[in-house]
């Protein structure tokens, strides 16, 4: 079976700072992979490289077996339609109401009629537990947890084949975080999508993934089924999932 997404030797540096140093990663169709790793290890850069928001310096990125590393213009727009993304800060458009945010990809990206897109937007909002009157509000009027839900509704609005979640629970209280985790797990299952999430929240990682990969030093240093994470035998993984200051991972106290 062709992997849904494949990264081969992806490298990226900013100036003299090497962020990705040869990332190899394979994501099977309909699986849910979580990348864990400390802040600033390049998790977001990895996702943005797949989305073409950041151009990798080296390496190849395949989606459904198609090399998308260098595609541009209309060809990229076509591939982008396979993706949905929930951003770390939700990244809602603050100049338009909530329902238009959710319907944005349908109206602008796919040229759907506004009335029809609005109906779909309202359905998706209901799916993430928001009522129709929230659809009329503007993003600034929402709490952080509600913004994340709207971001989730927007990500799934066009029934994407692949959904990315960038730190979906960061900055939320533990209960809201768990609500979001449940939503992610159920929507991914409902839509039948392939999911790639990044997080440093281990509770979230365990709940939403069936595989986990750890990014450290610009490389994937371990990956395996979620059930095996506690017996990885990898000292880096052990230190990370147990949140210990002592271990092979040295944190720079001063950046």
């Amino acid at each position, binding site marked *: 079976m062709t992997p849904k997404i494949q990264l081969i030797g992806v490298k990226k540096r900013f100036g003299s700072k090497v962020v990705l140093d040869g990332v190899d990663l394979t994501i099977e169709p309909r699986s849910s992979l979580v990348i864990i790793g400390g802040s600033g290890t390049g998790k977001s850069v990895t996702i943005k490289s797949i989305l073409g928001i950041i151009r990798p310096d080296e390496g190849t990125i395949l989606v459904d077996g198609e090399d998308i590393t260098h595609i541009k213009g209309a060809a990229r727009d076509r591939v982008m339609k396979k993706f949905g993304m929930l951003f770390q800060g939700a990244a809602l*458009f603050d100049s338009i109401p909530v329902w238009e945010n959710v319907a944005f990809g349908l109206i*602008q990206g796919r040229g759907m009629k506004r009335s029809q897109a609005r109906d779909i937007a309202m359905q998706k909002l209901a799916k993430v537990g928001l009522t129709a009157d929230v659809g009329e509000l503007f993003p600034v009027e929402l709490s952080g947890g509600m913004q994340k839900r709207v971001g989730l509704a927007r990500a799934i609005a066009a029934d994407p084949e692949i959904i990315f979640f960038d730190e979906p629970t960061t900055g939320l209280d533990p209960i809201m975080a768990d609500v979001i985790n449940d939503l992610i797990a159920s929507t991914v299952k409902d839509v039948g999508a392939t999911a790639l999430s990044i997080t440093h929240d281990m509770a979230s990682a365990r709940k939403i993934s069936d595989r986990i990969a750890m990014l450290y030093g610009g490389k994937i240093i371990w990956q395996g089924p979620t059930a095996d994470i506690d017996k990885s035998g990898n000292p880096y993984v052990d230190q990370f999932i147990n949140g210990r200051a002592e271990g092979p991972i040295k944190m720079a106290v001063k950046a």
Partner: protein
Amino acid sequence: MNPFALIGRSTMNLLAHIGRLSVFTGTALAAIVAPPIYWKMIGQQIMRIGYFSLPVVGLTAFFTGGALALQIFLGGNRFGTEAVVPQIVVLGITRELGPVIAGLMVAGRVAAAIAAEIGTMKVTEQIDALTTLATNPIKYLVVPRLIAAVLCMPILVAIADSIGVFGGYVVATQSMGFSGGTYLKNTVDFATQADIVSGLIKAGVFGFIIALMGCYHGFNSRGGAQGVGSATTSAVVSSSILILAANYLLTSLLFSQ
């Protein structure tokens, strides 16, 4: 610090900026002709760039025309001022002051607003979000602003020209005791189509500079509120300087026979 290293680094920085700006401009121009065209966004920007700039541009043009008339009257006492004042006012306003003053005022208002808005969208990942929703940010954000600014500036300047001449008229008739009819006749007889058209061409170019600088600095802003703040400043400063430089260039191009 080694002065040569400093000069070298600044030169490299400048060249990098010019390179990035050229690429940005090329991408934006290519995007103007490629579908889809976001009509609604263009309309919205025409309101924000054109319509809402009217009061600022009108007021500054009025006072500039008035001050110009007063200067010529006071300085040119010895000549036949009744004819000279309206002629110099209309020439100065249509050729130079109308487009330049309107350009600088709109640069302050609009380049800043564009840079702040796009800069905020950049640092809050809204621009990245556009990409993931199969919408090209250059087409959706930059093209409508460029089109609106290039369309609106000539109209704003045409209005500024009229109000500037009117400012001169008010000062001349009210405080210099000129006859209104003669003033208008002198104005209309003296002004040529070329004077007015040259000013409107300048206006279009200034509109392009304003929108381009706002968008470019917005797109290149980094790191939170402070980054957006400095993008806003850079947009106003660079568009003002470029407007004055382009004005000189266009004057020498348009009026050298």
